[in-house]
């Protein structure tokens, strides 16, 4: 029998996604189903003085905060965000009232007058009086490091909001069932929604069941927000006693849901005369928006990655997530790391310019190697591949030759080196305590996890791991869609953990099952002994230590590594920067399914191109002023350059077959690589998106 791992086997999704047979949330319908709608604030904070329904209420279900039977919170980290505004509100597009009706036309024709008494908003995170989270990472003696420095280079770097633009907007259907409620939806983390509904509905329901439907993209955008929309649909469904579908249109999705945190990162770096890093002082500010949501953990990942993949004996990283009166920012592929790595990689380029060094040589001199320690004091093992990806990317792209050839032309070439921690930070995985179940079937095995397939290939990749560990053909492994009524809590589908962490637990479960089966096939065992089920829980590698208070220790079990080389061309009349080619080298431990792995890298890279050059959220009075795909631009076929993607494999012993996390890694590199390529044109650009206006300003400032 051929191994499944390492081969690009047929996807478990089947053909349905390409023939239109796959059923997404908006394709589902129930008898007697109503449609739901949300009435939202328009001011960026204030007080609701009252409201008036300017329509005939016959046939309508109307819900406000008084209809909430449990706690009025969207349960997550700090439970500070209400599901529906009671009186005080903190941002525009905050939900106040819910309406449902069987006719979508009648529903959207209904007029509601909200009386808002606005309060003075704060939009500048640097002026905000409130921090949701402060993190301080300290290593060595910073002042002693600066005292020895021959050069000190400083700089400030900024990144903007980014909208996920999953092509399927947020949507759920809530269906009352036998005293309880079932919610079907486009979601990444069924158990997050389950917990939020349990808090919200309290004893009004006998049970809560959350079922993932086929999901049209997530990228972090369907990590926490589905708890909000699911709560709304459930409240309407319980009051109406009928199923309620809520699907946002694109505009509502863009004005109301989370975005990538904007950032301001200041670097002050001391170096020896020959370019060795001696001291790195990094101050990170993230704009969190109006509620805590996931900002503390986004900030945490941003902070830990802020010194880049470099060794430096003396480091201070001071990071804060600030309250502002905009809709809360949240999880987005990369989870804070793209922002801080943009800053450090553009800063490294500026250091090279200041010292008159070749920037590749500067990186080679300082790059993390096995045995080195990171800013948190984590000692890296042989699975550290920073130097290897740098070398390979420089070679494959012809960087040195092109750097010379492009000089003085309208073209530029730039590079960025990056890393991404796999799985939850620190002791996060231990706290999650993820579980998986493997069931023997009459012909093979069935995987029960809450890990969701959102396009990245979860079901396929998990089935490959189980097939090989159990020694059965891949085709005999079934992977149903998650239903919290059936599957155990395997943790959320986030943080590049689904292959490395959940996949590893599945591998252990399959090995256990194989031990029970002995030399029998599943058919033989099932016939003789009947059903068999194995449940396994996450076990933390015994060498991991983490001090949550001091931010010291093994921040991640392992890291994946990447290096991007971007080639760009600028139109001197329009200041438009066009990416010509991207070379991407990613080291991911082991590619379980090479084609899917490559797809993650290509897709993440394209999203990074958008982050770098196109995607600009215009905020006006705390609200997104361009909430349409007409004026919020993501890369089309014509904006996405050809990519040369090359995967390296340096196995991590704690991952299934050596696999590390992969999903987020590729979005860390394109933006700094592209901006560093623009720098070769003589433009001192330190912010993204590098839209023509920003490029022109940089050109004027650079003289």
């Amino acid at each position, binding site marked *: 029998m051929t191994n499944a791992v390492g081969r690009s086997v047929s996807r478990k999704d089947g053909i349905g996604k390409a023939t239109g047979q796959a059923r997404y949330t908006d394709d589902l319908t129930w008898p007697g189903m109503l449609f739901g709608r949300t009435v939202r604030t328009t001011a960026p904070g204030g007080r609701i003085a009252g409201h008036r329904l300017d329509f005939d209420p016959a046939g309508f279900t109307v819900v406000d905060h008084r209809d909430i039977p449990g706690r009025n919170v969207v349960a997550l980290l700090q439970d500070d965000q209400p599901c529906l505004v009671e009186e005080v509100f903190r941002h525009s597009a905050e939900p106040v009232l819910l309406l449902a009706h069987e006719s979508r036309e009648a529903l959207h024709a209904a007029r509601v007058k909200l009386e808002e008494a606005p309060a003075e908003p704060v939009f500048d995170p640097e002026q905000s009086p409130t921090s949701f989270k402060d993190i301080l990472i300290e290593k060595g003696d910073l002042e002693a490091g600066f005292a020895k420095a021959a050069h000190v280079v400083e700089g400030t770097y900024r990144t903007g909001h980014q909208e996920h633009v999953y092509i399927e907007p947020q949507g759920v259907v809530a269906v009352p069932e036998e005293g309880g409620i079932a919610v079907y939806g486009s979601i990444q983390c069924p158990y997050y929604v389950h917990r939020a509904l349990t808090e919200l509905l309290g004893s009004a329901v006998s049970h809560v069941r959350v079922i993932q439907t086929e999901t049209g*993209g997530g990228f972090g955008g369907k990590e926490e927000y589905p708890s909000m929309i699911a709560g709304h649909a459930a409240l309407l469904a319980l009051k109406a006693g009928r199923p309620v579908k809520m699907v946002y249109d694109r505009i509502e999705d863009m004005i109301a849901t989370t975005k990538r945190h904007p950032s301001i990162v200041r670097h002050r770096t001391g170096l020896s005369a020959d370019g060795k890093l001696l001291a790195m002082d990094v101050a990170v500010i993230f704009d969190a928006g109006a509620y805590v949501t996931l900002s503390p953990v986004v900030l945490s990942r941003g902070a830990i990655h802020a010194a880049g993949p470099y060794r430096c004996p003396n480091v201070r990283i001071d990071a804060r997530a600030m309250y502002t009166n905009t809709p809360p920012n949240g999880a987005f592929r990369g989870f804070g790391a793209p922002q801080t790595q943009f800053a450090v990689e553009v800063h490294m380029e500026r250091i090279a310019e200041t010292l008159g060094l070749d920037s590749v040589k500067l990186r080679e001199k300082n790059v993390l190697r096995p045995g080195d320690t990171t800013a948190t004091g984590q000692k890296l093992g042989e699975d550290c591949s920073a130097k290897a990806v740098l070398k390979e990317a420089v070679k494959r792209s012809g960087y040195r030759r092109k750097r010379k050839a492009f000089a003085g032309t309208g073209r530029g070439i730039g590079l960025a080196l990056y890393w991404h921690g796999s799985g939850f930070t620190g002791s996060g995985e231990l706290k999650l305590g993820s579980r998986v179940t493997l069931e023997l079937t009459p012909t093979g095995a069935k995987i029960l996890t809450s890990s969701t397939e959102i396009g990245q*290939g979860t079901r396929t990749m998990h089935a490959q791991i189980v097939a090989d560990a159990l020694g059965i053909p891949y085709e005999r492994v079934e992977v149903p869609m998650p239903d919290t009524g059936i599957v155990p809590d395997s943790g959320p589908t986030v943080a590049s953990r689904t292959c490395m962490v959940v996949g590893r637990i599945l591998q252990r479960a399959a090995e256990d099952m194989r031990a029970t089966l002995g030399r029998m096939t599943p058919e033989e065992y099932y016939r003789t002994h009947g059903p068999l089920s194995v449940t396994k829980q996450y076990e933390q590698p015994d060498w991991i230590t983490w001090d949550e208070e001091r931010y010291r220790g093994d921040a991640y079990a392992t890291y994946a590594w990447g290096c991007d080389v971007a080639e760009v061309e600028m139109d001197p009349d329009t200041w438009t920067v066009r990416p010509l080619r991207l070379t991407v080298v990613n080291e991911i431990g082991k590619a379980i399914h090479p084609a899917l792995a490559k797809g993650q890298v290509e897709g993440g890279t394209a999203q990074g191109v958008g982050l770098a050059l196109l995607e600009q959220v215009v905020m006006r009075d705390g609200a997104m002023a361009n909430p349409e795909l007409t004026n919020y631009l993501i890369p089309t*076929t014509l904006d996405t350059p050809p990519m040369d993607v090359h995967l390296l494999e340096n196995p991590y012993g704690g991952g299934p077959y050596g696999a590390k996390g992969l999903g987020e890694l590729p979005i860390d590199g394109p933006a700094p690589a592209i901006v560093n390529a623009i720098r070769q044109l003589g433009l001192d650009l330190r912010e993204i998106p590098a839209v023509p206006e920003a490029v022109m300003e940089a050109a004027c400032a650079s003289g």
Partner: protein
Amino acid sequence: MRFRVNGKEVESEAHPMARLLDVLRLDLGLTGTKEGCGEGECGACTVLIDGNPVCACLIPVAQAEGTEIVTIEGLGEDHPLPQAFMDEVGAQCGICTPGMVMAAVALGPKPSLAKIRTGLAGNLCRCTGYEAIYRAVKRAT
């Protein structure tokens, strides 16, 4: 209005200004055609009208009078494009895929890479970075 959908005669009593997308999805139950933006930018609702790819969210059904419409469901089981999209991982989350496939059908046989890129420029995909889609189209056509 009378028109043909996937070879079958349809008589629609929808409001003439109803979106063709809603008539297809809600009245005819053809949910393979997806809504991504409702403003003709993402192409997830691409169908063929008299052989031309259009966004069904922008077409009032009155405009479909007398035309021949093909949706993803009308492509037939043996069409090579859907299988090529799955094999090459040109579909990840899959929500753009039916529209992308219909736009690819309209490219005709053996399109060049330049023609593929131009022909699919009205169809947004957020998952793949398009490279796998080019591989799929090349494989199937």
